[in-house]
């Protein structure tokens, strides 16, 4: 019989433990997870790049919903366990959900430490631990303003850099005389401070926070307004981020009577004082130590998996740890133990002009600690010596200069990597060593860093070892490795989509044959992949000039209906904003009867689909629909599909704006415009969001003060909430922003690339810069769109119903069915 395993907490540590468990012994356990966070497992380390905008949330998800499904895991999202009943062997969540276990794994992580000053509970006082914290910071950053980060450690500085990147004025307030004093000495702390100040981040050291000030609001809602220091200095703040440390989250374990100290006490096999309960991750305490970095937690996870499957193997031991500060442009690495102690010596190299600082701590002719600032290229070499306990007496003189000097002449950067032994750890987060990566590259023919990530996980987490992985690729593949290689559009060319788009404009290529000639297409006449893309690029680059090439369009766009599995078509008339009337409905009903259309169905986009129409009937069906004022809904194309709306102020008691009216306005202005991939929009009358605007390509949420514009959502193969773009006060502004956004997408998007993928590729910030910050550019984009609409807003159905266009499409060329054999 399978045993029941219940896991409390769904962070990186249990995620890794379960991965190992399912690999080693699939089906042994029936797994139930409770996660206080309402989401699947993601890479917490990478929250800082999400905050700064360098990555999106989707990019840091470790296990998507499908993973849980595949492994038969019941994941309770957003359910926090409040009690463990060890006698009954059950756990109970806040909402009363219970689950019985044979084995329990506690993985509750840490909780951020909150300094007990007045004002700590005010709205706008945040911590930095999970995605909700990041989202709260992003919302605050939308309006610019001031942020105060309390705490100048790793986390605080990453938060500060992220908020700065999002356009806030940032001040870091740190209690100690220098930053990151646990990792850096005063000199390096000073260099770091200067590097941050160069980025216009203010740093105040020796600053003890006395109080957090509140706004005085007549409506009684108060939020943070500033921070007061011990010396009376007052700093303005729209948000305060506390990043002063973490402590293991051992509360429920303690209440359940397990042995706890600072954390949940475990033995080397990660067992708690109850033999059926294991614990893993930041919540545990082993040998008096607690952990705040992923590498040791992942090692614990492996042991937990072995323990659960009865495999045995080595127990947990403390090892030297390394960290890097993930602030783009500031290179800082520290590893091992660098506290001053009896019998320890230091080697220090300072190059103030280059901003380089290196410090090695030695004990008994071994390196026990290393701090590198400004130049971290030798970090893995030093870290390897720390872990190996190498005797360095022979190379002590040149040690600080790194591997380039240790073994004689080595000048190129990959030389350091080449000298590493095969068991040297390259990726600390995932415990991947050089040998594994090199073997994967050679045996599985990997050619890019993404391949290596997919196959070995190396550099897939914090990413600081990406450079090393690239060097391994270069070493293994030699000249065959091309870091900048682009994916060709199709087999007819070596050029990628971006390059082709650029050349169309730069070389003024205005027809597909010209382009194929000029860009040396290798096929005659292209293929089914490149032709539709080229046709779109031509159309969007040369509105009014380029003549649409129908034969380069997919059948649906060629005949303006959707092909079905049996070769019949579906017909969807436009219903502006999802609004219809009796006359339209009557016409639809009549058409359905007259042409014996087998299925009439509501679509997901608030309109009606007529399915099973014979191709030769299409023009007549359209003629009847046209007669009732119905036009093509473009449900078949890479175009604006629908603008879903709710009833807003027309009817709804919660409505704040005329959401229906705005939806109709947007649709009337934008229909017919060809786009790289389909575009779906929605407008909701209030944040209750009945039209589901926050998973659309573009979504508007009406609020009392105006309109929030969101974009880059997805609800198909991928599921993704939208990104916030901006807040505007009037409908006119809303339309201008949306149109400019779509035009930018039309100009930059790769064919078949939905808005969320385009946004991920070019970066949300670049889009904001073009459509929000640069008002002039927005205006130009709007006008370019309006111009191209002159040539695209004629109903394709009407032209074909009247037989003006493409008559050949709808009639057979000849009918030989009546022909009979003559004797």
């Amino acid at each position, binding site marked *: 019989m399978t045993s029941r395993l219940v896991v409390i907490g769904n962070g990186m540590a249990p995620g890794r433990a379960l991965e190992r468990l399912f690999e080693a012994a699939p089906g042994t356990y029936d797994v139930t997870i409770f996660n206080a966070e309402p989401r699947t497992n993601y890479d917490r380390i990478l929250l800082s790049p999400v905050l700064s905008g360098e990555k999106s949330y989707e990019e840091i998800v470790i296990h998507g919903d499908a993973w849980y499904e595949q492994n038969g895991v019941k994941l309770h999202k957003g359910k926090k366990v409040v009690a463990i009943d060890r006698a009954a062997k059950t756990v109970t969540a806040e909402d009363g959900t219970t689950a019985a276990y044979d084995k329990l794994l506690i993985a509750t992580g840490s909780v951020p430490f909150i300094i007990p000053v007045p004002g700590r509970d005010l709205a706008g006082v945040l911590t930095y631990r999970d995605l909700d914290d990041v989202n709260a910071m992003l919302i605050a950053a939308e309006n610019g303003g001031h942020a105060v980060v309390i705490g100048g450690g790793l986390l605080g500085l990453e938060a500060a850099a992220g908020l700065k990147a999002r356009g806030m004025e940032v001040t870091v307030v740190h209690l100690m005389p220098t930053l990151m004093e646990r990792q850096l000495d005063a000199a390096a702390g000073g260099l770091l401070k200067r590097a941050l100040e160069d980025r216009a981040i203010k740093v105040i050291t020796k600053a003890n926070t006395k109080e957090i000030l509140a706004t005085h609001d007549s409506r009684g809602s108060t939020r943070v307004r500033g921070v007061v220091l011990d010396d009376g200095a007052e700093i303005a703040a729209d948000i305060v981020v506390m990043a002063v440390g973490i402590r293991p989250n051992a509360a429920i374990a303690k209440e359940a009577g397990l042995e706890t100290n600072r954390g949940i006490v475990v033995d080397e096999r990660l067992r708690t004082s109850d033999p059926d309960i294991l614990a893993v991750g930041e919540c545990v305490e082993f040998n008096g130590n607690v952990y705040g970095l992923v590498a040791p937690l992942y090692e614990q996870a492996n042991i937990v998996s072995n323990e659960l499957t009865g495999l045995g193997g080595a127990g947990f031991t403390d090892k030297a740890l390394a960290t890097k500060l993930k602030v783009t442009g500031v290179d800082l690495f520290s590893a091992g133990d660098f506290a001053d102690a009896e019998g320890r010596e230091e080697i220090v190299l300072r190059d103030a002009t280059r901003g380089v600082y290196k410090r090695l701590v030695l004990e008994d002719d071994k390196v026990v600690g290393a701090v590198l600032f400004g130049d971290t290229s030798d970090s893995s070499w030093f870290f390897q010596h720390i872990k190996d306990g190498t005797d360095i007496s022979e190379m002590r003189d040149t040690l600080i200069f790194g591997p380039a000097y240790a073994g004689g002449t080595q000048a190129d950067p990959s030389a350091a990597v080449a000298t590493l032994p095969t068991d040297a750890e390259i990726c600390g987060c995932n415990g991947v060593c050089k040998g594994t990566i090199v073997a994967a590259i050679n045996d599985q023919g990997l050619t890019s860093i993404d391949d290596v990530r997919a196959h070995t996980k190396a550099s897939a987490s914090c990413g600081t070892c990406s450079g090393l992985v690239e060097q391994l690729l270069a070493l293994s593949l030699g000249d065959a490795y091309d870091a900048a290689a682009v994916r060709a559009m199709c087999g007819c060319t070596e050029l990628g989509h971006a390059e082709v788009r650029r050349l169309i404009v730069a070389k003024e290529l205005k027809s597909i044959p010209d382009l194929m000639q000029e860009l040396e297409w290798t*096929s*005659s*006449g*292209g*293929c*089914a992949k490149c*032709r*539709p893309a080229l046709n779109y690029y031509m159309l969007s680059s040369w509105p009014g000039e380029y003549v649409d090439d*129908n*034969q*380069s*369009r*997919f*059948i*649906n766009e060629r*005949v303006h209906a959707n*092909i079905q*599995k049996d*070769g019949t078509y579906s017909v969807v008339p436009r219903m502006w904003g999802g609004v219809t009337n009796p006359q339209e409905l009557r016409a639809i009903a009549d058409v359905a009867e007259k042409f014996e259309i087998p299925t009439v169905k509501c679509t997901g986009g608030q309109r009606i689909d007529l399915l099973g129409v014979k191709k030769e009937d299409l023009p007549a069906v359209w003629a009847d629909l046209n007669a009732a004022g119905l036009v093509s809904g473009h449900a078949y194309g890479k175009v604006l599909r629908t603008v879903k709306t709710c009833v807003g102020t027309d009817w709804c008691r919660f409505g704040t704006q005329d959401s229906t009216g705005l939806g109709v306005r947007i649709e009337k202005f934008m229909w017919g415009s060809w786009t790289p991939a389909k575009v779906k929009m929605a407008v909701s009358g209030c944040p209750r969001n009945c039209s589901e605007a926050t998973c659309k390509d573009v979504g508007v949420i009406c609020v009392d003060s105006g309109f929030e514009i969101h974009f880059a959502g997805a609800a198909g193969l991928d599921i993704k909430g939208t990104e916030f773009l901006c807040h505007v006060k009037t409908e006119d502004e809303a339309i201008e922003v949306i149109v400019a956004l779509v035009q930018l997408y039309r100009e930059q998007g790769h064919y078949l690339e939905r808005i969320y993928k385009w946004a991920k590729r070019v970066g949300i910030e670049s889009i904001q810069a073009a459509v929000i910050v640069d008002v002039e550019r927005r205006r130009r984009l709007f006008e370019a769109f309006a111009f191209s609409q002159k040539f695209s807003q004629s109903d394709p159905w009407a032209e074909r119903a009247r037989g003006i266009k493409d008559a*050949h499409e709808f009639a*057979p*060329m*000849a*009918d*030989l*069915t009546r*022909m*009979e*054999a*003559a*004797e």
Partner: protein
Amino acid sequence: MTIMDNIWIDVGALEDIPRQGARLVKTAAGCVALFRTKNDQVFALDDKCPHRGGPLSQGIVHGNAVTCPLHNWVINLETGLAQGADEGEVKTFVVRTEAGRILLEASKFVRNKDAA
């Protein structure tokens, strides 16, 4: 052997089919798709993809091949064989173009009176 052998039927003009396009001819034996390539070559095939019966005449014509509109199988117009990793074959018919007219061989499409 019937009298229809070696009799060619004129089914229309080359210009009736768009370049890199296709038209249908309805016959007693089902629909036949006539394809015209970029170089004005004409091919006739059953309008039925070997995969799941998709109407090949609705696909995109490129080189001497057509991509099926349903799941993107690529069918070689000369041989009727599915290309690449897919396996399957479509029936092909002999077709001639003469002075801008397209001719099919009649015997393949006649309905046998007795069976009718």
